[in-house]
């Protein structure tokens, strides 16, 4: 089965080529990922899509807000509704919250500084389109690099009830502590999903944790995200016209 994934490029996206590299060169599982300029993105051609990291539109006004108004998001909304997998990484997460695909918002880090380092996140929900290959409570090693990663929601109760909190920042022992929370996110939340669990947003970068050579921890937990997506699509059946 030939799976087609769109990696949507906005003006200012930075991690598009990185993500494309992992999907096409590192994962060997019948995946064909394509870089598509935001104005040209058509949902009917793809089984899933990635909104990569970066500084779309320079983060002007607010991270992700201008990209959220792009026609690409109207197209992606169709995918959201019919249950196809959508992942927003870092800036992609910010875009998805501004476009209201996902609940909550991302604010400036507590420290007011950009932070680039490897962290641990714990799997709280392993039933989503991007976490089905993970174990519940599994600790993943993955890097962050952001200035606006502090997660905030005015509706925490609903998130908890609906199991929409997918990842939390933890220390080496799996404990949720202030020190392990790099940016002051509410409840140490690192990633959330929508109600239907086919759309995920997270601040850490799985595409940077998919190859041993780049990992200071000798793990490649980033691959689990993409493997889960492939598994999800296979179970659903292909959507793309040639699939």
């Amino acid at each position, binding site marked *: 089965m030939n799976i087609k994934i769109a990696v949507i490029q906005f*003006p*200012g996206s*930075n*991690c598009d*080529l*990185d993500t494309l*590299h*992992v999907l096409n060169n590192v994962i060997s599982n019948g995946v064909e990922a394509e870089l598509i*300029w935001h104005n040209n993105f058509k949902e009917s051609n793809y089984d899933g899509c990635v909104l990569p*990291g*970066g*500084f779309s*539109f*320079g*983060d*002007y006004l607010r991270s992700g807000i201008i990209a959220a108004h792009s026609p690409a998001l109207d197209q992606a909304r169709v995918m959201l509704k019919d249950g196809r997998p959508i992942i927003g990484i870092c800036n992609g997460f910010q875009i998805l919250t501004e476009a209201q695909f996902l609940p909550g918002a991302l604010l400036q880090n507590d420290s007011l*500084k*950009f*932070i*680039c*380092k490897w962290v641990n996140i714990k799997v709280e929900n392993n039933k989503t389109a991007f976490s089905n290959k993970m174990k519940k409570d599994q600790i993943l090693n993955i*890097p962050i*690099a952001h*200035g606006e990663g502090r997660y905030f929601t005015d509706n925490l109760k609903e998130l908890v009830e609906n199991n929409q909190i997918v990842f939390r920042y933890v220390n080496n022992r799996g404990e949720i502590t202030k020190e392990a929370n790099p940016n002051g996110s509410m409840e140490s939340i690192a990633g959330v999903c929508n109600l239907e669990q086919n759309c995920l947003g997270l601040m850490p*970068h799985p*595409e*940077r944790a998919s*190859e041993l*050579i*780049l990992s*200071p921890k000798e793990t490649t937990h980033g691959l689990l995200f993409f493997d889960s997506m492939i598994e999800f699509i296979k179970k659903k059946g292909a959507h793309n016209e040639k699939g």
Partner: protein
Amino acid sequence: MRKVKTKDTELEVDLTESEVKYIKDFLKREPTTTELGMLDIMWSEHCSYKSSRPKLKQFEDAEQNYDYVLAGPGQDAGVIDIGDGYCLSFRIESHNHPSAIEPYHGAMTGIGGIIRDVLCMGVRPIALLDPLRFGPLKNNPHSQWLFKYVVKGIADYGNCTGIPTIGGEVEFDKSFENNCLVNVACIGFGPIEDFKHAPSRADYPGDYLVLMGGSTGRDGIHGVTFASRTLTEMSEADRPAVQIGDPFTKKMIIEATLEAIKTGYVRGCKDLGGGGISCALSELTGNGGTGAEIDISKIFTREPGMNSFEIMLSESQERMAFVVQSEGLEKVLDVFKKFEISHAVIGKTDDSKILKIFDGNNLVVNLTSEALAHSPVIQREEKKPSYIDELLTQKTPDLTIEIDKVIYTLIGSENICSKEWIYRQYDHEVGVRSVVKCGDGDSGVLRLIGTNKFLAASVGVNSKHSFLDPYNGAKGGLVEVSGNVIANGAKPRAMVNCCNFGNPEKPESYWFFSQAVQGMADFCRVMRIPVIGGNVSFYNEDDVSHTTIKPTPTIMIVGIIEGEKNIVTLPFKKSGNEILIIGDTKAELGGSEYNSVVYNIEGGNPPKVDENQVKRTWNFLFELYDKHFVKANHDVNKGGFVITVAEMCFKNNFGADLDLTNCFDNSLRNDEVLFSESVGRFIIESEPKDYEKILKIAKKNNVTVKKIGILISSPEINITGIKNSKDIKLDLNKMKNLYDITIPNIMEI
């Protein structure tokens, strides 16, 4: 500055009387205001290098003498062939004066400028490095302010454009208090095919000239002449000479440029930096032996009513000039349209060798392309400052303080402590190339996708050593920076340098520059390292407090590692392994951190370089690498070798049992043994079983190797075998804590 009459009016310029006469003589007429303005900028120190060219001639011609050098000094950035059809391009530049006035935007535009220089060689910028200098931070809010905002400027620009900052260096010294140094370096990578499409020359008549990028405004008019004068009390009012960078536009420019080059119709590319359009056009045509006709009314401006003088001299950021083959013009313009970048076709090249600039129907500039690019040279006087000889004889007091106290003080001193506060703010992983990350190696190591090769890059120099002996200091910088890439397993391939000095019109200041250049030229020639680019920043002096910076000839070395298994990293790996010191430790406390931190002394006997010894040491190391005998490597620099050992212990929480008996020259004092900063030394980790073989290879190469200890798993460094002294016990956790907290304690309230 002086007032000069032109065809239309009077203009204030920095040109000397003789330069103005020279201009009138070869033009055989009065220059127009715009022409004079252009010449004022093109012939400023910053653009023309008139004081430094005579000395820089000492460097070997890189393109002629090294077959893998594809572009040498004089082009926007140096380029080397690394094999497999790929090339690396890199350059280092200074942005000192603007950053001293407005650190955030100064640093931003510095990064913006260096990215453009590499981009216009046709390759993708993939790494940044930043060697910086400030006054000491403690109790100095001004230095803290400069430091905080320079780092933020570099971070914001690099992060937004998605180019990782993989290395850097910072020195704190009183001499930089009013003249901070912000040097920035960029490395690009791409196929040689693409580089061939982007020379900094317009070689063919009949090609279109296209301006692209940000709009042209009144920013920075006279910015380059600002850089060619010392900072004075007037500087606060000079604020308009600092421009505002726009990394988002830059990111679009990067993608659009690379895509335009891939069309195959681009025949030349140049970024607009100091001197704006004047500089770019004159260099493109001057270097290419062509002329051009330009209509500046076609240029998109951001402010209404700009006249030709303002347009030609504007230094608005984020602008590029392209030379495009006429058949491909539409294709190239389509690329710019896709990325929604402003662009305009401003003219065409021809074979006249004259630059004709029209403003609508008015001819405002009519100069030979050569005139602008080839300023007259000035021969400067040089004189060794009288205080140096006395400084060299300064003696370090006898060591009466307890050694462990000294080490704890050194590990937490500003020039040695952890710089993590800085590099956590840089996205050093974007691009998924970063294999050896900040803190894990002496240099940043990136993989080069599409090949089996890795690049290793490092920057720096020791300004305290260079102050006492600029000739050996510059050489020492080369030894150390090359040592950094070698410590990660790379062979140094090429060098670029950024010379930061005082006022060249003062013979004592110029002497430092002359000596440093001589040192670099001599070393590189013997060691076969091509110099593929350089930058000179003079006038780093403060007229009000009469201080000049310590001479800072910053070096950058890029090396190549062939294959992943040949990468070596800094942290110690296994308890029970042995710690060896390679190289000779000498009585060279001059300019050391020990002298300055403990006794506040600047003088003494600084480290000297013996090229032959350095060559032998490097060959020896590469033989060890071939046999995979080296498990960890860190070159010895500030603070001496005990600091080096501690830094290697930190990451994986190792400790060390050191026995220094018979390891060092008996004539050395204890402090000379422990804290000397003799260059060209390394600390390596090796397995006990390989020791005898290592000694054999050392003997063959005539290199000094001594086993000084073994790795243990408890966090302590125990030192025995120090002459007439009791054993020393250092608490590694205490050392790590002091190492980690110095900068955060000062910078975070």
